């Protein structure tokens, strides 16, 4: 995995060491290790129930680890409560103080810190400008839209000048368009304030938009982590490939191993794939993945039979029109369905269902997964 931490002379903002968290019999986190550099926009991505919230809340001090440590800026803080940590948090919803105005909400932390009222309110008002809330100071939370409420939460957290901001599904309660807009705003806000953001989401598009680095969390395990682009382009784990992007997943058996690549038998076709440092043995069952937009479709005829190691034959199923793109579904001889995605209307001579077709790709587009 191409693992590059942003070079700083400071200690990492967050180090999670061998962290486990159990709720009774439920093992929500299992031996998680993770390092997040200061100033990063880090995303925890994964299916719901995977343990993302638990990990985030353990970093924030809302849960005590069952095992393991949480270090913030190099100091072990595993047993400190949230108010003694250099973190602050934005919740999915319902977290605004309903009996206080927006201004009182935003300046609450400053009031707790003992800063005098006038100064606190000035600072709060300035932060409200930053997040686009000027003019709403005297509103009560229930008089705001969902997006505005999340802005209040952001302002309330950022005004404290803590250096780690935790966000648990901050956009999940918003409608699709607003979520997209606010994603970008979050990204820009983080670049502006320069502190570490740790953002939990189950939405891969949201993750790709905001993240410098992404960690995939599923089933209590930290599956894989790396730069957002690498996670998308070159996932190492099978789970990552199936969760991020629209990938075709194929399973087969290794039929030949040589140097940097190996040959995998998938439904009778011999596919050549780079090993990328993974150990494989002859006969071993492995998985392959390839992004649907990198798979090209052409009609099969006698002259272009598969056999080059970078193509496979199947029968055309149907086309699914998705607006910008169209997905062409092709059934392989073993019954597995593969998708080739093209810009809509790029192919004008569509095969009819049942026609034999050939799917092919650039040699480096397909990836091997041994786990």
């Amino acid at each position, binding site marked *: 995995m191409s693992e590059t931490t942003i070079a700083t002379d400071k200690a990492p903002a967050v180090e999670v060491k061998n962290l486990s968290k159990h709720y009774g019999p439920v093992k929500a986190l299992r031996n998680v290790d993770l390092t997040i550099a200061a100033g990063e926009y880090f995303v925890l991505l994964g299916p719901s129930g995977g343990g993302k919230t638990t990990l985030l809340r353990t970093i*924030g*001090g*809302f849960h005590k680890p069952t095992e393991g440590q949480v270090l913030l800026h190099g100091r072990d803080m595993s047993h400190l*409560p*949230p*108010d003694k940590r250099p*973190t*602050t*948090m934005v*919740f999915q*919803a*319902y*977290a*605004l*103080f*309903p*009996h206080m105005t927006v201004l009182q909400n935003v300046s*609450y*932390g400053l009031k*707790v*810190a003992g800063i005098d009222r006038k100064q606190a309110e000035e600072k709060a008002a300035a932060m409200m400008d930053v997040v686009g809330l000027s003019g709403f100071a*005297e*509103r009560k939370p*229930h*008089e*705001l*839209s969902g*997006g*505005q409420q999340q802005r209040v*939460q952001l302002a*309330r*957290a950022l005004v*404290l000048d803590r250096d780690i901001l*935790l966000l648990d599904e901050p956009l999940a309660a918003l409608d699709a368009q*607003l979520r997209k*807009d606010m994603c970008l705003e979050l990204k820009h806000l983080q670049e502006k304030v320069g502190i570490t953001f740790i953002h939990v989401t189950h939405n891969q598009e949201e993750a790709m938009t905001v993240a410098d680095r992404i960690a995939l969390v599923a089933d209590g395990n930290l599956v894989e982590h790396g730069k957002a682009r690498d996670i998308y382009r070159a996932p190492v784990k099978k789970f990552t490939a199936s969760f991020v992007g629209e990938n075709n997943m194929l399973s087969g058996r290794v039929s030949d191993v040589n140097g940097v690549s190996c040959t995998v038998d998938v439904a009778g076709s011999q596919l050549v794939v780079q090993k990328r440092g993974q150990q494989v043995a002859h006969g071993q069952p492995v998985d392959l993945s390839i992004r649907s937009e990198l798979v090209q479709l052409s009609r099969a005829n006698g002259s272009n039979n598969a056999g080059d190691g970078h193509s496979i034959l199947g029968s055309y199923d149907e086309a699914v029109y998705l607006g910008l793109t169209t997905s062409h579904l092709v059934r392989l001889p073993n019954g597995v369905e593969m998708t080739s995605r093209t810009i809509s209307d790029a192919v004008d001579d569509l095969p009819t269902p049942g026609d034999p077709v050939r799917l092919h790709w650039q040699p480096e587009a397909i990836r091997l997964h041994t786990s």
Partner: protein
Amino acid sequence: MTDEYANPWLYRLKWLYMLLLVVTLMSPVLYVMYISFNANGFGARAYDFTFEWYRLVFSDTLLLNALRWTLTLAVVVTCITVPFAVLAAKYYKTAQNKLPIVFLLLAPLFVPPDILGSALLVYFKSLNASFIWLGDQLGTSMFDGWFRLSFFTAVIGLIIYTIPYAFIVVLITMGRYRTEQTEAARACGADGWRAFWDIEFPQIRAGVFSACSFCVILVFNEYTRTSLLKGGFDTFTTVLISQMLNTGMSPQSYAMSSMVAFTAIAIIGSIIIFTLIRTESLSRLARAKAEPVMSS
């Protein structure tokens, strides 16, 4: 408030109905109050206004003692019940499975007072006997008085009685409270207490005060459980009822009844008026600020 197209007579009829209902319900109480100011007592044809009966109540040491015990009981029960109710409501808010909690907390409402009272009585008696036996075995008289009928046993009985009411009243005012709010306060640097006082308490304040008033009224009015479980003291209602049973209603009894009723009405009335004023001022505030809300 009302549908503008509704028949105005229907509206008036509704008010008339409510008025009639209240008068029917309250007229015996009002009549008792009326009698309590008559120098000639109950049944007399002549009506001469007087405070004499009230003066007599307040010069009777038996009654004054009873009043003192009642107040002490009310204060102690309230001080224990209300914090418990707040804790229960807090717990209810975070609990995954809410049904058992509701059932446990509301169960005392469905047990008739005499059954609950006598059950506790039997329970305390056996407990007392067991503790005395335990003391004898250990050669100490330390445990002897623990569960003898006393102020303590009466307090327990009344806490069981008042908890469901206090719990419900507090829970109602927790409508907009979510645990995330407390967590957000913690994330803003507040410790547990600070978060409670700044975030939770202001939201449930009305509920806590109402629960306190309820407890005081319930303890003041309660006869069955108190009379079964009390030790060597009397409360206002136990004195009143034993007097009525032994010697019939005296003009003094009317004065006492009126006082109990009046206390309850005064407390409830002030809560209602306070709430009405507050709602009105809040809605005025809301109307004043009702500019259109822009999206996003």
